[in-house]
């Protein structure tokens, strides 16, 4: 760290390196976005799926669950929950949560969703499950 290598050389490498790698990152991001339509199934997004995503967000589902592996690790992965429970099973599970929880167990709140809202949530989860996520999750258990 001494001799020929000066502070101003270090500074120049910092600026040059940062700009170069940020531009490379932008280029990769740009390429990613050109490839995404084939992978993210955007053509299938309906108003119902959009509504489902909103319900997912405003009830802070990610505060306990993971979705595509991201979120909290307190409750199961939901990307493939429809594979585990099926559409009707998923809806029935959400509907059946006791208001006061299950004694001694991790409990999911009772959200009092309407049937339309439950349909929207399941439509959203099925949409997420249809995304090409490089074969993740490893198995049906999520």
């Amino acid at each position, binding site marked *: 760290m001494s001799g020929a290598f000066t502070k101003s050389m270090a500074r120049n490498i910092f600026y040059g390196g940062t700009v170069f790698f940020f531009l490379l990152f932008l280029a990769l991001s740009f390429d990613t976005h050109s490839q995404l339509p084939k992978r993210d199934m955007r053509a299938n997004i309906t108003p119902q799926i959009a509504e489902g995503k909103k319900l997912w967000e405003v009830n802070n589902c990610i505060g306990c669950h993971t979705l595509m592996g991201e979120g909290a690790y307190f409750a199961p992965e939901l990307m493939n929950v429809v594979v585990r429970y099926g559409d009707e099973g998923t809806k029935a599970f959400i509907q059946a949560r006791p208001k006061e929880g299950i004694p001694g167990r991790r409990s999911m709140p009772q959200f009092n969703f309407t049937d339309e809202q439950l349909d929207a949530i399941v439509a959203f989860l099925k949409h997420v499950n249809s995304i090409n996520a490089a074969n993740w999750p*490893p198995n049906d258990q999520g």
Partner: protein
Amino acid sequence: MQYQSQAVAKPYFIAAIGLFVGQILFGLILGAQYVLGDFLFPEIPFNVARMVHTNLLIVWLLFGFMGGAYYMIPEEAETELASPKLALAMFWIFLVAGAATIVGYLAVPYATLAELTGNNLVETMGREFLEQPLPTKVGIVVVALAFLFNITLTVLKGKKTAIATVLLIGLWGLAVFFLFAFYNPVNIVIDKFFWWWTVHLWVEGVWELILGSFLAFVLIKTTGVDREVIEKWLYVIVTLTLITGIIGTGHHYYWIGTPEYWQWWGSIFSALEPIPFFAMTVFAFAMVNRRRREHPNKVAVLWALGTGVMAFLGAGVWGFLHTLAPVNFYTHGTQITAAHGHMAFYGAYVMVVLMMISYAMPILRGRAANSNKSQVLEMWAFWLMTVAMVFITLFLTAAGILQVWLQRASDAPLPFMVAQDKIALFYWMREWSGVVFLIGLILYILSFFVEDKEEKAA
């Protein structure tokens, strides 16, 4: 202190410590809920406690960053802060907004909070770490801009050191990348893609510049090593940070619908991310070894060395542990991530803010360093909190390995909750480590109130 306006840092530091206590208490609630599932249910469900825990962390670190910057910038620029009044006004705005947000989380169901705070106008809520209601997010932007305006102006009218420049780049980056918190497209893949531009480019990008800058500042002050040497190190470290960390974002793009080539880019570049942290550790130890003076504030030096080591372990080693795509395929979204997150945040950001407070607070209170007695108590707090965090991380890692095995890798994978029940022992041990952490934190706070009788008599 050298400049009167540095005094505005004090309320920022006090608020940071106060919110830190709240964060830890909610951490203990969360830890308890892992093993006593219905603890505080339905009054404080897990998701609410978790939002409080993570949001308090972010907010108190931001208080620490701002306080640290307000303390450091006048000394670096060798001029008074542009507007101490603005800094104080922003302090109150940020504190009230932060407190109101936490009360909102606890007082009403999240969906109601979203309804009440205009989430229908711009839908930004309900995404991990960015759960804040719209007014809070706007408040963060306003406070950040006023803060940046204040310190940028100070630097412009004063000396422009490398340390101040790196800090400014870090803080401006923080503000710019937060803007992605307002972008929430209906396409979840794009949503997740840009969500990481805030989350990853903060903690594995620009925040490390803030960390490096604070560390360099305190090392100059406490070791008396030549500024030229320290600033050269700083440039090398932040270069390594950004050339590995920016493309390293790719390690979040393995399984969210993005193209498979990210598995290569992400694995290779994020495998290099430990290097800047290792350099930081070597830097801290080398500077302390080469010290030209014995600074009376020994505990600040301890925090400086500690943050180097713990950031390297937590962010570097524990990050590397699960960053390669073939490994991450199995560990993604398990307790391994939680283990890494805890030690990385503690080692890199909690400890650097506590280092800054440890160095600056005595000076703000009119002395070069605290009494010996107070420093010894703070060192106890350092070791209790740090060792407790090491054990929290080890227990979560053990839980994570078992979770991966039981739920994902074995021949007969178990359902999530069945696997969770089998690893409860490790969650219990994590919770008790958390209690030790809290004891360390209590000692830390007590260290501010220790009076030295001899000093007083003299």
